[in-house]
């Protein structure tokens, strides 16, 4: 692809690159995000996938749901394997052993395989500047192994290794902001997305693929199994996450922040939290604390967007 295709109801991307028959849970928004991302990337894509939900549900020998070339190696090295594919193709094309062709090298990993065990490999790949896309499918815990906490688990959430109990109230730390870590690497494109906004997600993934150099897309993936929510509400929950500012949607292009799409009307975090069993144990004061924190984080994000707007409006016109 050399330009972004605007997908929408009138311009449906009908080709599937991820075959049904996969073993994802009912209502899994993570596999939906993957399905949409692959539609955006198209057939000239190679995927390096970390161990996790998506890998397990899609590749039970002898069958596979993948319609594009795919490799799974380990838990922490999706970014490294993807770097290797990119380097290999680059060398082979330059040495005329493969015809020159634009092939998207994409790493796909969960929050565990990105924020925790995969952080080093991600950082290395971003720093080396490979022409690749890293997609983090964030369901906010180690879901595949049975809902254990990760550094991406939000404050107060119940997981099997951050259970609320007499001496604990659930996850005691704040969610690690990997998108900001990616921005700190100075890469050309970082974005957050959610499959509840499908056309936006697909556009961002396309942009990430088209940009020269590393791109990082962080996708909030509602997980009814781990979040203890209703499977049919997975899309709605994503919208609530965005509207409550818990997961703002934005892009950072060469360090310039923009809200994409425009933030919807604000709703209180309790609207989002109360729909999920993993937050059932929260007290009112905890919810207030979460609200304060979310508001503070969003203020800082708004400030960055404002600074970016001011900086670009001050740029001398050629």
């Amino acid at each position, binding site marked *: 692809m050399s330009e972004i295709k605007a997908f929408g109801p009138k311009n449906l991307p009908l080709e599937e690159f991820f075959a049904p028959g996969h073993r994802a849970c009912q209502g899994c928004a993570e596999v939906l995000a993957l399905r949409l991302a692959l539609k955006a990337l198209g057939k000239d894509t*190679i995927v390096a996938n970390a161990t996790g939900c998506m890998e397990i549900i899609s590749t039970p020998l002898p069958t596979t749901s993948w319609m594009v*070339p795919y490799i*799974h*190696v380990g838990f922490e090295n999706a970014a490294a394997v993807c*770097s*290797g594919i990119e380097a*290999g193709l680059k*060398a*082979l094309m330059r040495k005329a052993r493969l015809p020159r062709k634009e092939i998207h090298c994409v790493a796909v990993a969960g929050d565990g395989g990105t924020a925790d065990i995969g952080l080093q490999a991600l950082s290395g790949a971003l720093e080396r500047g490979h022409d690749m896309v890293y997609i983090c499918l964030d369901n906010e815990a180690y879901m595949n192994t049975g809902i254990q906490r990760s550094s991406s688990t939000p404050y107060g959430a119940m997981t099997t290794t951050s259970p609320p109990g007499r001496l604990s109230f659930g996850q005691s730390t704040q969610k690690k902001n990997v998108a900001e870590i990616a921005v700190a690497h100075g890469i050309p494109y970082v974005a957050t997305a959610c499959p509840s906004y499908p056309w936006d997600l697909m556009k961002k993934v396309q942009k990430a693929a088209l940009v020269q150099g590393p791109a990082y897309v962080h996708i909030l993936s509602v997980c009814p199994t781990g979040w203890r929510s209703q499977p049919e509400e997975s899309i709605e929950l994503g919208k609530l996450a965005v509207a409550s500012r818990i997961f703002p949607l934005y892009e950072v292009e060469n360090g310039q922040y923009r809200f994409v799409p425009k933030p919807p009307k604000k709703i209180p975090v309790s609207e989002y939290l109360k729909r999920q069993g993993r937050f059932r144990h929260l007290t009112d004061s905890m919810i207030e604390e979460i609200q304060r924190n979310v508001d503070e984080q969003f203020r800082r994000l708004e400030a960055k967007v404002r600074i970016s707007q001011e900086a670009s409006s001050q740029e001398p016109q050629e």
Partner: protein
Amino acid sequence: MGKRVGMEVSIAIAEAACQANVDVVAAYPITPQTHIVEHLSELVADGHLDAEFVPVESEHSAMSVCIGSSAAGARTFTSTSSQGLALMNEVVYIASSLRLPIVMVVANRSLSAPLSIWNDHSDAMSVRDTGWIQVFMENGQEAYDHVFWAYRVGEDRRVLTPVMIHIDGFILSHMVESLELVDDEIVKKYLPPFEPIHRLHPDKPVTMGAFALPELYTEAKKAQDEALKASWPVILQGWKEWGDLTGRYYRPVETYNLDGAEVALVTMGSMGETACEAADRMRAQGKRVGVVKIRLWRPFPFQEIRKALQGVKVAVVFDRCISFGGQGGPVASEVRAALYGESPRPRVVNFIGGLAGRDVSPGDFQNMVQEALSREDDRQENYKIYGVRE
């Protein structure tokens, strides 16, 4: 014939990778491998080698990058030692079970703790069971030659298995040796371009690294086991073809002065030359001592060991690594296993030494032989760490 030069072995190995026209080099620096990777970096920077040099952020990522690259169909090279090899351990297993013909030169160095940058075989033994084809080099010429051999064998469609070349750290890696570099013409005749059976490319999408249920994992491992066994003829063919082109023929096991020998020293790696010197001295004293030098470590040459040790009364096996809680040294274990069904069979006496680069002289080998002959008890568990101060 090729060009004779005085060259540091690490540099020669890098030159070999360059002549082999590798496509991707992904490595992380660790003593004493550094010169190999530094020189490759220079070769790429000066345009002598058209390759992607990926300066990874850890050895685990080094092997992961190699897997991605090899899966895309690129000829891939890496190198490491000791802690680096230990760090990439899980990925080393994956490289061979995914059947990707990566070539890795390991500058053997002892494993922590305590930290040591000097040579022994403990790092190699930590990857003994990973399914790679593994060879131990005795000198720099071998190391240089085997880079080509490794690609020739590993990338063969009948094999498709990664190859590890073990060189003693510092002792070989940093030694300036008189060796012969082959002409590019020879390399061209010997080494065809890499054409994998499966590669990652949108023209023919495949899935690599799927997960296997208990119902299928056994079959997967059987397939891998058979593939490694089936690599034997290609291993031998690779050596024969190299010999025909260069005059240097290699075998899984080399023997030295074994005719009528009562005692055989069994070594692996650069110690072989020292052992040969010791054997010469002992022969001069009238003792019937010869040497068996193991070159092919995996797949282990059971038959060749049995053949070499036929008629020998005592096999003094020298290990540069301890297998804690086991029989002493891994090489001694394998040799004993090879001899188990033989009748009669040599008494196997195991000495462990040369740990973390401690020097082993011909005199030391003479002492070991003397002690082995004076001992009568050859119980499996009775290994001895040679030269320890106590």
